[in-house]
């Protein structure tokens, strides 16, 4: 495998409904943004594309991938569609990485989109729930917010996590988003606001849950030689990892924790794992990505994380899967302010899915774009001069560049991807 670099990225501003633009035009706009930001990238330079969108039901257009690609002027080059539920965008990023790492291509565009406003929210819930077992789960009350609610109820039972701790994630992510003009929701809210907002599935309220959205995102990846030629400030993809778990969360085992390098089996001698309180796919993806990126302890070796906070609860569960804290300590971790911008490992400085929205096929690539801008030190440039959420490289043994992880996650933790990005300039 050879080194891979991200050389540009672009997004559209996600919105609950963007009826003025089709998915093709949104994809084109995200692509154009990326090309404008790195003008040496010409159509001739691009070898192929990887396109991601989650749901044929939402799009109501099969082979939509090639329609986005032809709108971008990238036919007749090779293209392929990637799909894996909520992790679709993260999988797309990694497929582009693989295409270059393997030496097959030198410059690849990862393009993702979703148009979820073409049905009402309750119909959208139905479409999303079709990504659960349609014999045993969906007909019982197929509703993803309900599934995640059950998972966090168990987390609360196992570890004493509180609804106020969940709400603090929403407060933090919305607060960060006040400085991100790309975010959809700019809310200055309190824990009480989150708890008083309408209940969706106990204990999750409207403000604990991301918004189904329309939008597109684009990441352009290249080999070392091409990155050097085209980009003044490329970002290295230091390592990637991915994991999976049973579609039905009822089937998940109750066994031993998969340990990260810095963890001790003694910490978890009484814990049944993953059960329904943790995401084994997330842990597996992290373990692989950390090993490939030579990260011994993510608490020391990462400067920030953009993770898949479709629910405040899944952000807390993911702190633990990623080894930012011990299993069971996720609630205390947010309560103590560690994932805040000023904490020791800022999580979702962009505002995450909670504040930006979740147009599924675009989401994982949106995280890549935000992380790319962070690693370039270019947040101010892309956020209208406001660089409040721009992070600095903290300490790190011998490191000189900002390093972050992006984490993309599919429903109830069936597919998870983790990619580590590091600045070079």
């Amino acid at each position, binding site marked *: 495998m050879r080194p891979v670099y991200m050389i540009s990225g672009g997004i559209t501003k996600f919105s609950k409904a963007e009826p003025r633009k089709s998915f093709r035009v949104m994809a084109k706009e995200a692509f154009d943004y990326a090309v404008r930001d790195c003008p040496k990238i010409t159509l001739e330079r691009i070898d192929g594309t990887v396109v991601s969108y989650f749901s044929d039901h939402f799009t109501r257009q099969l082979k939509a991938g090639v329609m986005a690609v032809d709108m971008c002027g990238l036919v007749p080059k090779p293209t392929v569609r990637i799909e894996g539920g909520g992790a679709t965008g993260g999988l797309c990023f990694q497929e582009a990485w693989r295409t270059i790492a393997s030496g097959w291509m030198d410059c690849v565009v990862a393009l993702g989109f979703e148009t979820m406003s073409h049905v009402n929210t309750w119909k959208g819930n*139905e479409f999303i729930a079709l990504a659960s077992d349609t014999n045993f789960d969906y*007909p019982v009350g*197929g509703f993803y917010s309900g599934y995640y609610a059950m998972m966090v109820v168990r987390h609360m039972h196992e570890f004493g996590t509180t609804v106020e701790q969940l709400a603090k994630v929403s407060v933090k992510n919305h607060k960060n988003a006040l400085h991100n003009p790309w975010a959809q929701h700019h809310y200055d809210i309190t824990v009480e606001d989150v708890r008083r907002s309408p209940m969706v599935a*106990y204990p999750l309220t409207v403000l604990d849950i991301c918004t189904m959205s329309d939008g597109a995102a684009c990441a352009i990846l290249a080999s070392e030689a091409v990155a050097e030629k085209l980009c003044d400030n490329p970002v290295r993809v230091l390592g990637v990892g991915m994991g999976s778990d049973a579609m039905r*969360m009822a089937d998940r085992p109750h066994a031993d924790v998969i340990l990260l390098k810095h963890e001790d089996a003694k910490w978890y001698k009484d814990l049944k794992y993953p059960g329904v309180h943790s995401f084994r796919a997330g842990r597996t993806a992290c373990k692989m990505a950390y090993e490939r990126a030579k990260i011994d302890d993510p608490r020391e070796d990462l400067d920030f994380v953009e993770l898949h906070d479709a629910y405040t609860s899944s952000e807390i569960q993911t702190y633990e899967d990623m080894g930012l804290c011990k299993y069971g300590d996720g609630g205390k971790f947010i309560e103590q302010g560690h994932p805040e911008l000023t904490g020791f490992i800022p999580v979702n400085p962009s505002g995450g899915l909670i504040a930006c929205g979740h147009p599924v096929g675009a989401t994982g690539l949106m995280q890549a774009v935000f992380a790319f801008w962070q690693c370039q030190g270019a947040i101010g440039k892309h956020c209208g001069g406001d660089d409040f959420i721009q992070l600095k490289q903290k300490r790190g043994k011998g490191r000189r560049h900002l390093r972050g992880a992006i984490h993309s996650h599919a429903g109830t933790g069936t597919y998870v991807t983790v990619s580590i990005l590091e600045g070079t300039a």
Partner: protein
Amino acid sequence: MAKKKTTKKSTKGVSPSATAKAPHGPKPVYDKVRLAETDVGTTVFRTDPLIVKDHYEIDYIHSYAEDSPFFRGLAEGKLRGSQCTGCGYRFATPRAYCMECGRPTQWIDLPLEGRVHAWTTCYFGSEVFLKECPFNLALIEFDGVNTLFLTRLIGATQDEIYVGMPVKAKFRRLAQFKPTDVYFVPAQKA
């Protein structure tokens, strides 16, 4: 005066009223090839951009295939799970092959009593279930079984349900051959 002049001039032209009055007007033309008009209209939500209603519906010919005995069992008041013929792992939701070791499973009867392992009350949901809101979902754990079973929990409100609550299975008298043919109720109320 000027007005009269203009009127005169226009009658010399080809205005429809003028031709209609003419003794030798053009003959009507009937298209030989023409799509028949209908009274089928379109529901329009907005005109700019133009947003219209686009209906889509489908009936599947769905086979429960290898899981068929589970659904037939529900109609007979039985809750069937799977046990691995190799490692003995017991699944509360049927599956043809063992997730732990990959070997085939055999059918087992599950106990009809268990405990709530995790739960929620849904106040919103997918279109098909909206009219049932609020409803409870629960994952049930059984003694001697390694995995859980997703079900509806009836007869208890959000304030009453707790992790560890003893529950009993009940079955619809008239089966619909859906996983909701079985549901659970608090053991005290069973």
